[in-house]
């Protein structure tokens, strides 16, 4: 069992969730309540990272973020290290290919909040910030939870983009998905099965617990 790869994957998942959470909430709300021309196109654009094969997306990201790209060079000047083949690069890739899962469920969840409830919140004098965390987030919670869980699971499992952008460097960019893939490629079915089982089990427990706790939190919100 490659624990460091598992740890890396979990870290990557957590960071991805952590960053996509505010981003998804912001974009989800925007898309839920604003009507603007071309909204459908924006929504469609946000789905596109799913359309390209991951390795190909990874290839293009490698080009876009690599040493020779403006982004890569700017990053290197700023932080003194290269963006691709590093955890940061992995994270950026992970954010991009998880966008579709994060935004859509959150957008739907915000759309489902009755207008009157938001109006009542404004009439109660709640600040936009308070409305967000006290009214909107709890009400949109199931959708947000879905988004987070999908993001979590998908980040654990994704390897095409990660392999291309990260380069499978042990301890730094070699995720558990790549490790399992390698074992399968090496016909080491036993090790692959063990790793898969551990990964599935951990995911199952983590996701079950978050759904379980999630609905409980949601239900018992009010006793805060």
């Amino acid at each position, binding site marked *: 069992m490659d624990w460091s790869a598992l740890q890396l994957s979990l870290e990557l998942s957590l960071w991805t969730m952590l960053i996509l959470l505010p981003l998804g909430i912001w974009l989800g709300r925007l898309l839920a309540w604003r009507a603007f021309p071309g909204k459908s196109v924006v929504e469609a654009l946000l789905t596109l990272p799913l359309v390209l094969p991951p390795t190909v997306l990874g290839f293009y990201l490698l080009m876009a973020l690599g040493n020779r790209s403006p982004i890569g060079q700017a990053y290197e000047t700023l932080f003194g290290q290269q963006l691709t083949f590093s955890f940061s690069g992995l994270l950026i890739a992970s954010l991009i290919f998880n966008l579709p899962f994060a935004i859509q469920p959150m957008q739907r969840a915000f759309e489902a909040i*009755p207008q009157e409830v938001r*109006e009542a919140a404004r009439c109660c004098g709640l600040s936009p910030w308070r409305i967000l965390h006290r*009214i909107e987030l709890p009400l949109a919670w199931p959708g947000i939870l879905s988004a987070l869980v999908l993001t979590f699971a998908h980040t654990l499992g994704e390897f095409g983009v990660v392999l291309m952008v990260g380069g499978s460097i042990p301890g730094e960019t070699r995720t558990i998905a790549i490790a399992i893939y390698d074992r399968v490629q090496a016909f080491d079915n036993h090790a692959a099965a063990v790793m898969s089982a551990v990964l599935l089990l951990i995911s199952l427990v983590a996701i079950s617990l978050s759904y379980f706790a999630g609905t409980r939190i949601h239900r018992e919100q009010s*006793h805060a």
Partner: protein
Amino acid sequence: MPDGLHLRLTQESPIPLNAEIACAPGEVLALVGPSGSGKSTLLRSIAGLYSPRYGQITCAGETWFDSTAGINMATAQRRVGMVFQSFALFPHLNALDNVAEAMLDLPLKERYKRARSWLQRVHLGGMETRLPRQLSGGQQQRVAVARALARQPRALLLDEPFSAVDRATREALYQELAELREELKMPVVLVTHDLDEATLLADRMSILNHGQTLQTDTPDRVLRAPASAEVARLMGMRNLFSGRVIQHEATHTLIQWNEWRLRVRLHPRFQPGDTIQWVMPTSGVLLMPTRPHEDEMLDNPIDVQIESMLALGENYRITLSAGDDRLTMQVPRYLAQRFSLLVGQGLPVRLRGETIHLLPAES
């Protein structure tokens, strides 16, 4: 700039509006009008939840909305307390939290102490931890009322706040409202369909129809002297008829109605010969046999026939056929029994000319 709440809004569509209301601090203004006349829309405009095309809204000297100046203050800044017609409770917060949420400017402990006491005041002690979906309709409405009142708002906007509450509880809430109004000295705009409620609670009453304010006056005066046949009809005044002015005397005006000449209170603004409409509350029709009084010189005895009798609480609503028109009177049950009133029988009644109000004929 004047104190209190002032509003003047106009637009053509989608919801036609042509309204003007004013409500002084500590005053209760009842907004009365048929379903769909725009009452909720007016309240929503005041709260900043709806922005009509043209107009101004000011409160306590502050401009909340001005279409020409492009001012539209955010709802949260307007500091209104609002009871929504559909309650609009926060579905995930219990009753206590729903109320506490409106008092964020207070420290936490104080907030919950007050929220608890507000729930007591609306007779919901013991329901603190219930979620809205675990409350009955009337209980939800009372949480909404508590939430609106708790805010110590600068203007209180109540959209049929007692519609789902039973009589006894409602009376208790009237009491709370009356006290609060003394305490806080804020303008209160109350939408209601219940004229008793309006007369009981409101200092003045605004009649709205198709988005237009038709008359604003004390409830008493609106009921006694509606500004138009439309208002009379909206007030549910059944005794609205056509007639003609015959002449003005020193103390009264004489009008012709079907075969009768009626003495009514003096209305010098109409010319003899004018076709008019006249209106009278059901309490203006009395059974004949009472001793004459000095104030009864305007009483007009006429003979009519009972067409139908409808039990209505402790009274009968009696429809009388009078010539081509139908006159309605309200008689307490015991009197109806005493006089053995029966459908079809002839009945001498008096029309109290003092309560008769003349209106221009509708075009």
